[in-house]
């Protein structure tokens, strides 16, 4: 019997909110690695933002020991996956490191769009999938319905799916027994040439980049010189070990095992997820399949707010990049906002997370501009430009055509909401490809939509129209020509480059009007009237006016309460700091991000 027989490498896959992190917590607690009293809520979600939003962005991997009823001790490597559509590639690489997956289905909700999306990713990696029904402690649990949905919608046999409650711990022992039985042990040759998959990495200020890896063949020790097969870079291994959790050094890592490798690597981009590690002295012939370069789908400008230093923002961005291979940035200069950075993200959530970390962890005062996708601009001379900053769009006379990214959007919903979702998607230039009745009451809609329409609050609009019942999954499909124009915004007759957007020609009028109305509410009154105009080229297509500000005076200093008055003035001063001066027009920071959150429900 090989040591491999006692290893199980698995992930937990679930729709957001279906209890993945809670289940992971319970497993860690059950297998005795972390004392119950040391458990933070949801151990694996180790960033504050993740815990607040109930989502997992950065992966955490944990090695658990389980004494099974057959008398054997098993090593269970739990490989966590990020739980959001922006991180599909990262999810797929984590799954590639596994031999099986536990599919958590909320017994009160049933199967959701992301459940299906993640199951398909797991099936693509040939994983054995073990369904479990969670939240069985709730009165609203409908296990029979959930089983039926798993069978009807996913096609997995769910008759033996354990019924558990990750919250109360009910059924966890049975689940672990089942897991050992159902999920196969890893295969691999410890004496073959080293092939190890990087499925995550993060930067540690003492050890450099820490690579999380699954060894498929061969072994790796301290002192070995390893090579990243896709980037071709070599590093000397300074430490290997297991994640128990944390990093606990060991002599070696060998085929079938999951652990970490350090090698004085300076930034995570040099140890890109999906790359294959081999030995420089005895390299494998072929890397593992599935490596992709990180590709930014969404861009926005990040600028230091009034009083914030450019250098501080730059330092923070560099620090974040060290730890996030999917995030990139370059310097940008805006007439309105000064020197800043153009930043690329995997998606909108990724963008939110980064900007929030800048504010929270680095205590920076920043202004973020409207997010934009990458347009392919085909010029009349035949050259193709990638444009992700609307202000860089060349003169329309020189342009032959503009292509925009289209995504495939899968929306799963109770059938009651089909009508309103169809209206929403239509408003967002969506094209329905197919509609499937998964069950009598559950429908899956397949749309093709411009990514541009998805990145602005589409998810929120979808949730609000379906009282939160609909779920969304999307992936990039192709570039497609579209009739697009640049919409400029002028404040007090001055163009504000940071407010320019690229919009479909036929919607320019409505969008322009919407933005002007929105700005009218956001921009505070001034001492003079401020015209707000939307323009395409030289042509003004919409106009609003912010009336002049007339009064900002506190009449009474009541009973000598100078402190109260002072607090009001201090508050006012702080508020002003958050604004920007354009000519003489003060624009609050939120104008740059709020402006396109137009409610198209009306």
């Amino acid at each position, binding site marked *: 019997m090989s040591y491999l027989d006692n290893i199980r490498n698995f992930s937990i896959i679930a729709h957001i909110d279906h209890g993945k992190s809670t289940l992971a917590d319970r497993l860690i607690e059950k297998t005795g690695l972390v004392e119950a009293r040391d458990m933070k809520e949801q151990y694996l979600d180790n960033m504050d933002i993740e815990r607040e939003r109930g989502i997992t962005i950065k992966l955490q991997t944990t090695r658990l020991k389980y004494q099974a009823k057959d008398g054997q001790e098993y090593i269970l490597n739990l490989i966590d996956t990020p739980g959001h559509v922006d991180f599909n590639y990262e999810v797929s690489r984590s799954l590639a490191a596994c031999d099986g997956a536990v599919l958590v289905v909320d017994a009160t909700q049933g199967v959701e769009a992301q459940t299906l999306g993640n199951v398909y990713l797991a099936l693509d990696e040939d994983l054995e999938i073990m369904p479990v029904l969670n939240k069985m402690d709730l009165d609203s649990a409908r296990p029979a319905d959930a089983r039926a949905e798993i069978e009807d919608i996913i096609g997995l046999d769910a008759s033996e799916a354990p019924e558990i409650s990750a919250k109360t711990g009910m059924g966890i022992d049975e689940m672990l027994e089942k897991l050992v039985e159902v999920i196969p042990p890893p295969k691999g040759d410890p004496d073959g040439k080293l092939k190890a998959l990087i499925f995550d990495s993060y930067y540690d200020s003492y050890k450099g980049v820490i690579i999380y890896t699954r060894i498929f063949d061969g072994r790796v020790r301290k002192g070995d010189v390893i090579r990243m097969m896709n980037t071709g870079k070599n590093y000397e291994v300074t430490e290997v070990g297991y994640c128990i959790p944390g990093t606990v050094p060991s002599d070696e890592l060998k085929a079938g095992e999951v652990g970490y490798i350090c090698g004085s690597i300076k930034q995570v981009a040099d140890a890109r997820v999906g790359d294959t590690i081999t030995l420089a002295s005895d390299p494998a012939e072929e890397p593992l399949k599935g490596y992709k370069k990180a590709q930014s789908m969404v861009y926005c400008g990040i600028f230091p707010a009034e009083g914030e230093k450019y250098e501080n923002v730059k330092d923070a961005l560099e620090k974040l990049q060290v730890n996030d291979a999917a995030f990139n940035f370059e310097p940008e200069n805006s007439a309105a906002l000064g020197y800043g950075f153009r930043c690329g993200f995997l998606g909108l959530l990724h963008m939110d997370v980064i900007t929030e970390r800048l504010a929270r962890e680095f205590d920076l005062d920043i202004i973020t501009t409207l997010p934009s996708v990458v347009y392919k601009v085909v010029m009349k001379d035949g050259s193709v430009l990638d444009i992700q900053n609307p202000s860089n769009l060349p003169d329309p006379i020189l342009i032959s055509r503009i292509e925009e990214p289209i995504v495939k959007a899968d929306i799963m919903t109770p059938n009651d909401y089909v009508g309103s979702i169809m209206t929403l998607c239509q408003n967002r230039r969506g094209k329905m490809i197919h509609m499937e009745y998964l069950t009598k009451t559950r429908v899956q809609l397949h749309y093709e939509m411009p990514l541009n329409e998805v990145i602005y609050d589409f998810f929120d609009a979808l949730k609000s129209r379906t009282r939160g019942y609909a779920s969304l999954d999307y992936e990039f499909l192709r570039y497609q020509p579209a009739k697009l124009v640049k919409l400029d915004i002028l404040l007090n007759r001055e163009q504000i480059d940071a407010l320019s957007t690229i919009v479909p020609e036929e919607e320019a009028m409505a969008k322009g009007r919407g933005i002007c109305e929105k700005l009218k509410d956001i921009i505070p009154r001034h001492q003079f009237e401020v015209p707000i105009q939307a323009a395409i080229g030289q042509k003004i297509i919409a106009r609003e006016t912010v009336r002049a500000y007339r009064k900002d005076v506190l009449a009474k200093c009541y*009973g*000598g309460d100078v402190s109260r008055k*002072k607090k009001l003035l201090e508050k006012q001063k702080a508020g002003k700091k958050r604004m920007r001066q354009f000519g003489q027009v003060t624009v609050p920071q939120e104008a740059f991000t709020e402006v396109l959150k137009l409610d198209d429900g009306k």
Partner: protein
Amino acid sequence: MIKKTGLYIHIPFCVRKCNYCAFLSFDAETSPRKEYTDALVNEITYRGEQLGHPEIDTVYVGGGTPSVLDISQMRDIMHAVCKSFRVKEGAEITIEANPATLGRKDGVMLAKLQAYRFMGFNRLSMGVQAMDNDRLHYMGRLHTAENVVRDMELIRRKGFDNVNLDLMFSIPGETTEDALSDLERILGLDPEHISCYSLQIEEGTPFGDMAEAGELTEVPDEEDRRTYHEICRVLREAGYEHYEISNFAKPGFRSRHNSLYWDMSDYIGVGLGASGFTDGRRYKNISDIEAYIEAFAKLPEEGGRIEIPLEEDHLNSSFDNISEAVFTGLRRSEGISYEEALDAYMRCAEGPMHEDPQAAFWRIFAEAKEEAEDYVRRGLLIIDDKGLKLTEQGIDISNQIMSLFV
């Protein structure tokens, strides 16, 4: 410049709370007026002792509605003041009153006013607010315009020759013309001093609730400012000096007590929620009436101490001082001089100042300079070699200008 000291005494009771009022005040009928008075007397006695019985230049009894207290209660308070502080000869001693709260019958009213004279009050401030009965009713005021006229007659008969009348404008539904007609009627009463405030709708008041429910339309800023500037003009023409944002006085009748708040003088605040500025500290008494009464239920034994319960207690830094000097000073028509600002700055500093006040001022507020000059260009602020002052247009957005200096 010799700094003066004032004493503010808070009486937190009203017959009825007005619809716009967010101030600390309780129902006069059902509240423990007697217990409060006793506690207040103890606080005055205690603070006087602690401060070493200082000389004071002004006394101001405000509220609330001080005139709802019984004569004997007010007398106890004023006696405590005289025992605990050295009230200067010629001090300005003000009492606030609301029309129709001095007594239902003329005889009672005259007696009360006479008693106030005996207690030493030589200035009376009356919350008239409007001279139109519909508007008074709408605001929740309990008096009529006729009451005001009658009260004023009796006040004058009792020898009060320094009277302030408060006027509010921008009451929902009111036009500039309405406000000016009220002002005309007030001028007909020939007060020495007039305070004009625009009504502010505060959260948690009946007006605030109405505004939230959409049942009340605030007077637009444009109308409010037009009214204000019209009022300034009319009063100027009637011979009143516009000496502070909201205050107008005949020559020689500026409020000496309120002026203390605007020139960084010391003032001692006593009573519930009262603010004070002494020994370089800004403090504010607690606002919980029961806790207040309990804290001052008894005076300590000879030489003993009371832990005075405070809501706020802040030792001002040099920057606090200059900053406050500037934004309170800017409320005055003469503005703030560099010299005065630097005096405030040097209060808690060691040694003398060797720098030129003007240079020092702009060194301290270097960051504000560019924006301040922008206000000058727009005709809202005047900066010269002496100091800074707002123009009448600048008053409209005075908060924005003042916030440069905090």
